[in-house]
């Protein structure tokens, strides 16, 4: 039950992120959408390590430790996602110098 709720909420966040990217015209909101999607995926990964009544995977164990592998993946993926988002923000700042706007409808010099 716990697990299902975790997955469901993660998927909902994922879809909210996608919806944000698709419908918002502000570039910063696009980045927010990306961050939401990323968080959702991480949530799914972390949830998959869940064990009912689990304890932290630090020796010596006191009981039934949870799966440590998803934690490691999450740590890795967080850092990667953070780099992506930092880079996106940097691009937006640079692009703002040229277009004087962060409106996606006006940032479309490349088309056709």
């Amino acid at each position: 039950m716990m697990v299902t709720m975790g997955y469901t909420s993660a998927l909902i966040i994922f879809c909210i992120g996608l919806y944000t990217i698709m419908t918002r015209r502000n570039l910063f909101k696009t980045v927010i959408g990306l961050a939401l999607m990323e968080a959702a995926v991480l949530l799914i990964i972390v949830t998959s390590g869940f064990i009912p009544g689990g304890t932290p995977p630090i020796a010596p164990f006191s009981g039934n430790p949870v799966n440590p592998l998803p934690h490691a993946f999450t740590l890795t993926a967080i850092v990667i996602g953070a780099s992506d988002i930092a880079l996106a923000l940097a691009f937006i700042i640079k692009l703002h110098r040229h277009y004087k706007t962060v409106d996606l409808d006006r940032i479309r010099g490349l088309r056709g």
Partner: protein
Amino acid sequence: MTLVLAIVVPLLAAFLIPLFHLARKTLSVSLIGFMGLASISAALAAAFTGWFSPAVYLLGGWAPDLGIVLVADHLSSAFLLLASIGTAAALACSLEKFRGGPWRYYTIFFLLIASMNGILLTGDLFNLFVFYEIFSVAAYLLVAFSMSWQALEAGLKYLVLGTIGALFILLGTALTFMATGILNMALLAETLPSIPGETLTAISACLLLGLAVKTGAFPVHFWLPDAHSSAQTAVSALLSGVLVKVSIYAIMRVSYLFFLGTGGNVFLAITIIGSISVLGGHLMALRQDDIKRLLAYSTVAQIGYILIGVGCASAAGAAAAVFHAFNHMLMKMGLFITAGTLAEDKKTREICGLKGLWKSHPLWVSSFTVLSAAIVGIPPMNGFMSKWFIILSSAGAGTVIPALVIAAGTVISAAYYLRVLSAFISPEDERSESASAAPPRRIRRKGISLALVTSFALLCLVLGATAFSPISREFFSSIGDTAVDVGAYVELVTGR
């Protein structure tokens, strides 16, 4: 040992460049050249190791189910060879253009080399994702390197789409891990067929979409024409020639290992993506006025050809796809370098402005002619041969529609390459002639680029002429055989 060096040597080079810069404030061409040489030879050594005796490297000494493994079989070796040739050419062009100047450019370049070798060698799904991220971040930055607004916009769009693609790859990886608890690709190849159908659908769709976005196949190709046309000449050549191929390797590896045994429509989907890419890419290229954008759309179409080959799910199809990947690397790198140089000399990228070049740049134009004839698929050239092999394997796979699409694509591509060539050959307008009659500005010698382009053109001829020779057939068919032989891969990795 050689396998890990192919990744570590370029990484070390990338880490050392900032230190050299801090110490000396300038970088000499010979230093970068030496580092490049070391990286390329490390990659080639790995390729030869993998080719002559397929090898596995256990990182940290951990068994495949515990740690990460690097695997070099014929497929990875072939792509390593391709990537080495391509990166060497791009590095030479960059050195010729920038000299030792922009140290950050070279740092990112070496990181890109390391990550490409990583993608080609890794045998672990999550590790593939990590290397894909280095690869993508480096690619976004190389696209944006020129800092023009086009480059920045292209970089941003590439970044957003690429990140979404990466998130889907990560989601697919996560689902795979949830369903099986393992990430080693060889072990997954054994376990995946036994997981529930719905999960497999979700996994395959997520991985396929993510990899398709990274490759630039048609319905999700939007970043590709922007990025490839806005980047610097050498970067465009690298993007179109090598980076796309690395993504195609990932698609081949993942789809063959995971989905050959599971049944389902993955390969049908790949074939459909390929066919749409061929048509869409060619049709879009037909209406471009910007020569680099035209070449970029042509790349979309060529990706489609390769994907059709992959989608045959047969050894012949894989061999044809790899052959076409090689050919496309040669052709498109040559075309991009030529187009970039000519456009720089003429200070315009509009096709109608690129006139009278036959007189001023005869060698460039004739190389361009040979290369475009090859990419259109004029008979004695390699492009014709690889397209023929793809048509053959696609007919062998039982559907003839992709083959027809390829035939149609040939005609459309002939139309737009002819337009470019006729512009090159037609005499210059009166008005612009008087404008350029002004003392010619200092024309940089482009000896290395010219040598590269002409040698690529010659290689195209040679590859075309020798396509039916036993050496070439054996080379590519052995790649095809290993690509679809999942059992041998599993045996190689697990030692069973």
